[in-house]
């Protein structure tokens, strides 16, 4: 997928929210969905189970309108977090322009976080994408939980963020950090516009 199309004057960014099950990826999208004016958003497609677990994926298209003469669209995806949906994850990851890794800040979820991160790496690799080139940001979600249950952003940085990508602490349920994260990843993705554009 081409990020910038100078012929049709379109910019399309596909951003994938990645992370272990129940870390709050869908919650992120729901929060964003609620804040985007009706005219700007498409229908949020959510394929969920009875218990609100993402079965296939969520998809939220946002139309940012004309920016510098370019029709700009963001497509936000989430992947199913559960281990056994790897084929779906890889499918969703295909053609992604940027990845938000939503980590569960709870101390007891650390292993799941690490596992999911490794899974992200191996899926990117399998898709032939360069892990180092792919724009990635981290969101340490659920920071609103009692202190004794969660790891601090600094601790999580130590444990997960070995590539030193931008990281944000978040509380997706109440919305804090959600747009900061989105801004962060958008900036990284869009900065590649000039680099990636045919010069």
């Amino acid at each position, binding site marked *: 997928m081409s990020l*910038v199309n*100078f*012929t049709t*004057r379109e*910019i399309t960014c596909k951003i994938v929210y990645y992370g272990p099950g129940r870390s709050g990826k869908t919650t992120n999208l729901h929060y*964003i969905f*609620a*804040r*985007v*004016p009706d005219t*700007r958003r498409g229908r949020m497609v959510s394929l969920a189970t009875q218990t609100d677990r993402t079965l296939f994926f969520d998809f939220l298209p946002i139309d*940012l309108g004309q*920016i*510098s*003469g*370019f029709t*700009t669209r963001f497509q936000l995806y989430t992947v199913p977090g559960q281990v056994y949906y790897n084929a779906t994850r890889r499918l969703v990851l295909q053609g992604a322009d940027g990845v938000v890794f939503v980590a569960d800040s709870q101390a007891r979820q650390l292993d799941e976080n690490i596992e999911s991160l490794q899974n992200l790496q191996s899926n990117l690799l399998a898709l032939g994408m360069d892990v180092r080139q792919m724009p990635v940001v981290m969101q340490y979600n659920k920071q609103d939980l009692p202190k004794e249950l969660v790891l601090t952003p600094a601790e999580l940085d130590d444990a997960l963020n070995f590539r030193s990508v931008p990281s944000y602490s978040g509380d997706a349920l109440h*919305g804090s950090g959600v*747009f900061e994260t*989105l*801004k962060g990843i*958008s*900036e990284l993705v*869009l*900065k590649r*516009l*000039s680099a990636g*554009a*045919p*010069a």
Partner: protein
Amino acid sequence: MTTALNPRFTFETFVVGSANRLAVTAGRTVAENPGTAYNPLFIYSASGLGKTHVLMAIGHATKKLAPGLNVEYLTLDEFVEAFHAAIAAGQGDAFRRRFQNVDVLLVDDVQFLTNRKEMQSELLRLTEALQAAGHQIMLASDRPPAEIEDLDERLISRFSGGLVVDMGVPDYETRVAILRRKSEERGAKFQPGVLETVAGPDCDSVRELMGSLNRLIAHQAVTEGPINAEATRQVLGLAASAQAPAAATAKEARSSDEFAEFLSDVTVTVGKAVEAWRARVAEAVLRWEGEGYRTARLEALLEKDAPVGVEETFTSFVRDVERLKELEAEVTLLDPGAAGDAVFRDPSRVKEAEAAAAKVREGAAPPPGPSAAFTLSLFAAGASNQVALTAVKEVLAKPGKKYNPLVITGGSGMGKTHLLNAIGLELDRRARSIVACLSTQTFIDELIAAIDGNRMDWWRARYRRATALLLDDIHLLAGKERTQEELFNLFNTLLDHDRQLVFTTHAHPSTLEGIEERIISRLEGGLVVELQEPDRDVRRAVLERWLVEKDALDPALLDYLSDRPVDSTRGLAALVQRVADVAFAKEQPLSAGLAREVLEGQPAASRRPSGFRTSGIVVSSLGGVRSREKMVWDWSDPGDRVIEDLR
């Protein structure tokens, strides 16, 4: 015409805060040292933040410290009015004189200079005059000099040359302090919290603050009781008790703002990323246009929708421009007249430029070069010329860098010409070198011919191309004013380009007469080395070579001749020639005995009978010297040596 200083506007009544501290400090400094501290002092701030107050305070302070000084405050409009009135009355000069006599001039609202060209030049002239006379000028404006629309560049640089300070909006504490002081001045008393409420919301100017205070004072005068903070909000129409609902709406506000903020962020990022190449191209167009190059090729890029081939176009454009620069520089040296050709400014016409340069190159014949007969290997080395030879080696190692110019002095027949030509030959061996090596007389002749043929540009270009200029017998320049002038210019041009210059002369440059001081000093600025009378080693080496040539190498003869006292190499040659002539006449072989007989039998002057003291280069008839016989050259006192045409 000018405004009197408002007595209320002094430093004492000015409330200093972090936003205006610098301006006040600068103002005080200027008041204490008018004309020396910051001249001009330029203060700018948005309206109603105290520019006028500071300006007038400076006026007051100056007057207080030095009552004798002539201080004038006026707004630009008043200045313009006065100027127009003076012009209408035919008193323009009087107007100028009047303002030039002001010791401290305070001009307010100079932003109104926009679109007033004649006032700008008038103010520029006045500023210059005041500065030159050590008088202080202070200006106030609502924007910095560079942002005043349509302002003359020279004025901008003048204004910015002193000190430019801005005054910001006072912070909360300063606002409260201002309000307290003002209410005290008015004799108004307020309940605690009232002034704080007035100062609370962000305000854009102190004037606004004063307006609020005035409303409160008026309100308090008509109501019975003292006004409280709550009532203040109502009077001033501030959002009533903003705290409680604010908390409730916080989340709401955030939710609608968040997307808008995100959108504006993305807009900026996309704008930067997508339009970056356009900005780059536009910048490049401006730059090259500024340097006088045609940029059609780059402009064509901007017509496109996508940045296709930007890099390639850039690279090729810059490469072409560089090539044009090279060609132009080369052509400038060869023929300054041809360098102005537009073809050297259009990167799309590089081929034409190459052709034009080639044409110029062909047109310029190389200047006279060194004579092949005088090689460095034939120059006999010895103690007497060691210094000179060492210097020559250094010059040859780093032409133009080490000793420039190199001046070789020495009496007649010491080998100056030989050495000069030898240097020329060595330099000529280098790639792309153009060595001009000639006698000063030839140099003068060529110049005269060029003047005659009206080809001075061509002549200059020819020598400016030279990578080295070697002139023999520079003392012949004496009295040739035009040649000295041209040589002086050429000298400087070549020296600027690190081209090697070598000159020979019969005496130290400082003793030369009839040559302009500027040339002498330049000659002395390099290295002056002397070739001394040949020592025995040199004589022997030279003799050996000649005798070998004559096939008469006899050790006894060599020893005998080497020991003969001679003062120059040329004297030695004469010696050998005499012996050889006799040997030829007597049909005897050259031998020590014959030499002794010839040289000692009839003691002869070893000096050359002919008086002509150039280095043997033929003198042309154009130099004013018509015939050798008519030269009076060998006068006993060197100071009396003059060239005299007896006809």
